[in-house]
């Protein structure tokens, strides 16, 4: 039955076409605005940039005073590996980073949620955040020493402060953007306040929070250098500072490359998390 109908339909369609002027396909308008995963574009881009740079350095187009060749930086990196210092530096930095970032994010999300949820917190805390965020941590280094000492405390605190504020802002921005209809729905079903926050507001703010994580993680890495200005013997930041102090550009670039790699690794992790947690988006 349904087959007959289909056949009938098709016949009519053919007729129509034959009878009148030539038919043309409906143009496809729905494309774009989605993301295909392309092949290894990123590695190609990186390799191309590095190759260009190397060529520039070799031919003298890039002065060695302005920028050492990547191969030299690679040499410095090789030295690091050979002396076994790489793991010491990376290990020390990772420890400070993960501790500072985790604490800063945790506190930041909490305060951000409070600002997003309570009018009083918003009125009282938001201006405080706006006033404290722009305070440069480097300028306060002397005070940090007095407040937190010269041990791991001041290093973790530097990173903590650096990640705390952007996380607060990203989180409350995300909370503000949660669909109010969904919250009303939760209330109508008598969900507890905590359930609404946990099951509706936090997932709804998650895209913004994760986007904030990308920013705060990068800031945390940037602040490694500031953090390791004080009494650090190991750590990528200390290594970079040392290299800078000696104007050893190859080491400087090697250290910066380490930070970049760290940044890439964290971005990749956040990307994975996004794909896992935000799979519900188109």
């Amino acid at each position, binding site marked *: 039955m349904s087959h007959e109908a289909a056949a009938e339909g098709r016949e009519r369609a053919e007729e129509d076409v034959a009878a009148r002027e030539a038919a043309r396909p409906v143009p496809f308008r729905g494309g774009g605005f989605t993301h295909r995963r392309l092949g290894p574009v990123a590695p190609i881009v990186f390799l191309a940039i590095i190759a260009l740079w190397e060529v520039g350095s070799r031919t003298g187009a890039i002065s060695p005073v302005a920028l050492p060749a990547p191969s030299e930086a690679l040499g410095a990196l090789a030295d690091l590996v050979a002396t076994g210092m790489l793991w010491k530096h990376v290990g020390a930095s990772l420890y400070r980073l993960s501790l500072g970032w985790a604490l800063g994010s945790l506190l930041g999300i909490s305060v951000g949620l409070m600002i997003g949820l309570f009018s009083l917190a918003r009125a009282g805390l938001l201006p405080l955040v706006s006033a404290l965020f722009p305070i440069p941590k480097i300028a306060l280094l002397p005070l940090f020493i007095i407040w937190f000492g010269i041990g791991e405390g001041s290093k973790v605190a530097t990173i903590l402060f650096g990640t705390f504020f952007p996380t607060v802002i990203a989180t409350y921005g995300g909370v503000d953007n949660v669909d109010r209809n969904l919250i009303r729905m939760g209330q*109508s*079903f008598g*969900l507890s306040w905590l359930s609404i926050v946990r099951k509706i507001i936090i997932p709804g703010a*998650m895209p913004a929070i994760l986007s904030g994580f990308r920013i705060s993680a990068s800031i945390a890495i940037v602040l490694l250098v500031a953090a390791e200005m004080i009494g650090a013997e190991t750590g990528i930041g200390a290594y970079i500072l040392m290299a800078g102090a000696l104007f050893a550009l190859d080491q400087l670039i090697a250290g910066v490359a380490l930070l970049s790699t760290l940044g890439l690794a964290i971005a990749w992790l956040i990307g994975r998390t996004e794909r896992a947690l935000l799979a519900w988006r188109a």
Partner: protein
Amino acid sequence: MQLILRGISHRYGGTNVLEDISFAVGDGEIVCIVGPSGCGKSTLLRIAGGLERPDAGEVLVAGTAPDGSLNPLTYIFQDFALLPWRTVAGNVSLVLEDHGIEAKKRRAIIDDVLSRTNLSDFSHALPRQLSGGMKQRVAIARALAVKPAIMLMDEPLSALDSQTRELLMDDLVALWQRERFSACYVTHNLAEAVRLGRRIVVLSRRPGRIREVVEIDMPLTERPGRLVELEKLQRRVWEIMREEAREADREISDVT
């Protein structure tokens, strides 16, 4: 349980939306609300459900909810309000999780309401993978899951084909037969209204006032067999609304 609305008035900014609405939904009664688009039906229902505070008047409930009712006053939203990050089953589960039901029992409830709304195959689908009608059915399944004592339904069947609508309406009637919940049912389908309503509250154009209340003293079970009488009632409601529209038109032409 009974729901009593007394002298409800409400305004949004400058526009008067509801004016002095009073009626009651008796124990185990279904009251249908009909009225032109934008007259304030959804607003009235939100007020009745305690989701919005009216500018004047009060909403009361009386009686006790039957055993096992997790959320006595339950809402079915016109725009579905599904969490886009939860699957169909997860959206239903959401409203059960706060009640300390053990996981197995919860799963059983979910399976039951999903099969009743013909969604069993889609329990793991996300809202964006659903058709409009399927979303509406999820919203209904979610409401059924909490065994409400009073249901506030905002056009719950509007996105469904007649076939599915018929099925779900039968399901609703059967459920009502068993559980005798009370309901406030907003619809723009007069056939639905006369099929389900013990009373039909006809609202006027904005600002929504009660234009008339039509009583239908016929047991729900008998209604499928007495379609001719219902048809007459339906036509009567239709006449009232038509008259209202004519009056409104007159008003408009008076002004312009």
